């Protein structure tokens, strides 16, 4: 039998989670619809003046993305936890961190990537310029994986708890503030004519940091929750 490498494992987990997500399309769509609805509520709440909307567009889109990702985080480990798959995964000889990284990636592809693809359309509703939209998308591309990864720590810690959903947001949202700041900062920089490179570089740095540490921390959190 061929010995499976780390990469095989990663691909396997991602594929499995994507198949599972496709079987339950309603969950994925619900997150997306939530994102669209929250964003559309803002103009109704603050008034239709385009000047103001243009100013707050990036913030609104980012906060909505943050909330939408919180919504789907609860499902990250809970289904596997309930049917015992997670226990089997932890018993597997392969690295748990790698498995977790696979699950994070799949979560991002299901809940983060669609938001990124949808963001330009919503940005147009706010009359954002093409350049600002471009920066927003790059920022979201760099930032939403961080939300999935940091959120996974919270999801692992609150696994199987009553009222886990609210608690999860309470734990994770403060930790996501830097992502929000740099993501919206980049778009702000475009409109004030500053360089966007610094914000995007910082987002990239956070992404790399998260990529290195969060799978391991999440694996530890899972071990704590499952013992």
């Amino acid at each position, binding site marked *: 039998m061929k010995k499976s490498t780390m990469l095989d494992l990663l691909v396997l987990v991602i594929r499995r989670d994507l198949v599972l997500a496709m079987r339950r399309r309603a969950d994925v769509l619900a997150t997306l619809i939530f994102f669209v609805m929250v964003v559309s509520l803002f103009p109704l709440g603050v008034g239709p003046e385009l000047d103001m909307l243009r100013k707050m567009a990036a913030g609104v889109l980012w906060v909505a993305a943050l909330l939408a990702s919180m919504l789907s985080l609860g499902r990250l480990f809970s289904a596997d936890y309930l049917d015992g798959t997670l226990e089997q995964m932890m018993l597997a000889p392969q690295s748990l961190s790698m498995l977790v990284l696979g699950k994070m990636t799949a979560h991002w592809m299901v809940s983060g990537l669609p938001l990124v693809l949808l963001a330009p359309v919503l940005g147009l509703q706010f009359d954002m310029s093409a350049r600002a939209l471009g920066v927003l998308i790059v920022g979201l591309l760099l930032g939403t994986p961080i939300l999935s990864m940091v959120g996974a*720590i919270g999801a692992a*810690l*609150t696994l199987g*708890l*009553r*009222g886990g959903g609210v*608690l999860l947001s*309470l*734990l994770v*949202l*403060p*930790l996501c*503030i*830097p992502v929000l*700041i*740099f993501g919206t*900062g980049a778009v*702000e*920089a475009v409109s004030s004519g500053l360089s966007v490179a610094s914000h995007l570089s*910082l987002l990239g740095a*956070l992404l790399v940091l998260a990529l290195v*540490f969060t799978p391991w*921390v999440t694996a*530890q*959190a899972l071990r*704590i*929750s499952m*013992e």
Partner: protein
Amino acid sequence: MAINWFKYSAPTTFYGLAGKMIPWFAFSAAILFAIGLYIGFFVAPTDAQQGEFYRIMFIHVPASILSMFLYLIMAGYAALGLIFNTRLSAMMATAIAPTGALFALISLWTGALWGKPMWGTWWLWDARLTSELILLFLYLGFIALHASIDDPRRADRAAALLAIVGSVNVPIIYFSVKWWNTLHQGSTIKFSGTTMHIAMQQAMFTMLAACWLYAIAVVLARVRSIILERERNTTWIADLPEVKQ
């Protein structure tokens, strides 16, 4: 003579030691509070720029300092508990959290009270204010997570991991908020480089020491309650004179 450094790392022995230490810390905290408040209110002169309002800083500054230090100490104890699996460390971390949250709240509250007359507004999205607010959120997250897990062992370990992740995140949050703020607006008010009057310094440091002693006394009292609660089924608790009667 070999000293057993770990003698007091067991709840059994620490319970008695903490009981003996609490009155000392509480008493000296009360005295220092009295001295600090006296110097602060009657000896320290009125400030040339800020009038009488500056006296809020005698409680505001120590509260801010403590809220930040206590988070680090809490994360340190949490890490100790996670690494060495000592029960007492986790109990200490749990005992510190409410006091830290209290100081963060006092710091925000007194800051708002000072901000109204000085800046003309209760709240500014200033870097330090915002990070203090986020610090309060981190404390509340720690307390909420610990409270919602029934099994104390799992609660200790899960909350410990959260505290460590939080302490890694604190500098990132602080700098991101700082840069974010400088992008939006310049710092509104800077403390000019004036040297503080000697009486002001005395009042400030006395109050700081008093707050430290108060925090230690309260944390020790709380950790005693936690020990009693967690170990209530053991024989040594049943043999305690205060439990027996």
